């Protein structure tokens, strides 16, 4: 049982919404990144999927725009404790990008312009659970929030939704990414409060 802090009563204005443990609701859109925000010109932008067999699939910005997109409404949960509900996005489902990719890999490492990486099981990217998103709230995604395009995997803490995503490497073995190497949880399920290693 947690100890009670004398004189603390808390704010429970929006108590009817259910949040993962330890999260609080925000209406802002905070930013978490470990370094400066990279800027990537759309003419240079590309997205790749590399398989464990050494095959590479590539999309230019025009290729990405030509793919069928979806407009999911998603709840976001950041490990720094804020949650933001009902955010509107536009992007291409990973199912579409993976359609012609032949793989038996179990793990994926997403990597970004600027050098960021994050790992997750491949199945967490499939079956309508993940997107490469390029519009937020009807507008082009701004660089601080990961533009021109970011990965979105909303059922995991937001650090798994790699900003400035550049590609995904499919692997037979799990390979910890940036925050996963720096003490954060390998999987990051907010409903299980998997914030840090050992949670």
């Amino acid at each position: 049982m947690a100890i009670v802090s004398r004189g603390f009563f808390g704010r429970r204005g929006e108590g009817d919404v259910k949040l993962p443990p330890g999260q609080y609701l925000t209406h802002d859109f905070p930013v978490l990144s470990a370094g400066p925000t990279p800027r990537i010109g759309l003419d240079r932008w590309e997205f790749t999927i590399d398989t464990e067999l050494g095959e590479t699939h590539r999309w230019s910005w025009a290729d990405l725009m030509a793919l069928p997109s979806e407009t999911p409404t998603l709840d976001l949960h950041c490990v720094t404790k804020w949650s933001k509900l009902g955010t509107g996005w536009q992007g291409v489902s990973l199912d579409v990008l993976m359609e012609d990719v032949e793989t038996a890999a179990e793990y994926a490492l997403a990597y970004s312009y600027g050098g960021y990486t994050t790992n997750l099981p491949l199945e967490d990217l499939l079956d309508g659970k993940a997107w490469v998103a390029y519009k937020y709230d009807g507008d082009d995604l701004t660089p601080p929030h990961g533009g021109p395009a970011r990965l979105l995997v909303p059922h995991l803490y937001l650090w798994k939704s790699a900003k400035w995503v550049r590609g995904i490497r499919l692997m037979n073995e799990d390979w910890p990414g940036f925050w996963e190497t720096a003490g954060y949880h390998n999987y990051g399920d907010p409903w299980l409060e998997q914030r840090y290693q050992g949670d």
Partner: protein
Amino acid sequence: MRRLPWRVAELVEVRHETTTARTLVFEVPGWPGHLAGQHVDVRLTAPDGYSTQRSYSVAAPEQGERVELTVELVRDGEVSPYLTEILEIGDQVEIRGPVGGWFVWRPERVAPVLLVAGGSGMVPLMAMIRARREAGSSAPFRLIYSVREPDQRFYLDELASPDPGLDVAYIFTRKTPDGWARPPGRIMPPDLAGASTDIDSFVCGPTGFVEAAADQLIALGHAAERIRTERFGPTGG
């Protein structure tokens, strides 16, 4: 892998930094120690079991089981008004950590360091300045500390007589002291220019401040890999 446990933290000392910020020193039995730049999670629980958590940077290097935080009041906030106005000596909260292995300065490191703070973003950078002093490090440090007004500066006395090799510069965004040469205004490239770009930079503060300062460092030729940032929230770009 062992879970980072929640530990009971008892407030043992309070220091007022400004009219809206105070330093809280907690005694945390079993505290494993931390590095300068890391943060902790603070959990508050109400009598009916409701609880909430926030992150706070540690303001001082490891000192046994003591954990020192500096909290700035965010009006209408849930946690910071409690920590800055209600919590008293002898009261308890829960703390878990340390967290964050990236925004960290290690005393073994000899490279010159540029610290860029906006508002309460000063807190983890002060831990680095104090760690440098404690270690007797001679790594050159330069601090650029942006605040709205002169009386919003934390750690004023301590920074008034800086350690040898530590250079301190202030930026006032709204109101300057009398006779201050730089007009009030947000951080600009000339504030950051001058020194060599062969340095490690730590930039911490509200998101907008960090975005602006980090972009300016890049434009001045600093390598992105050598700029580490910590964004305290709230709003993004």
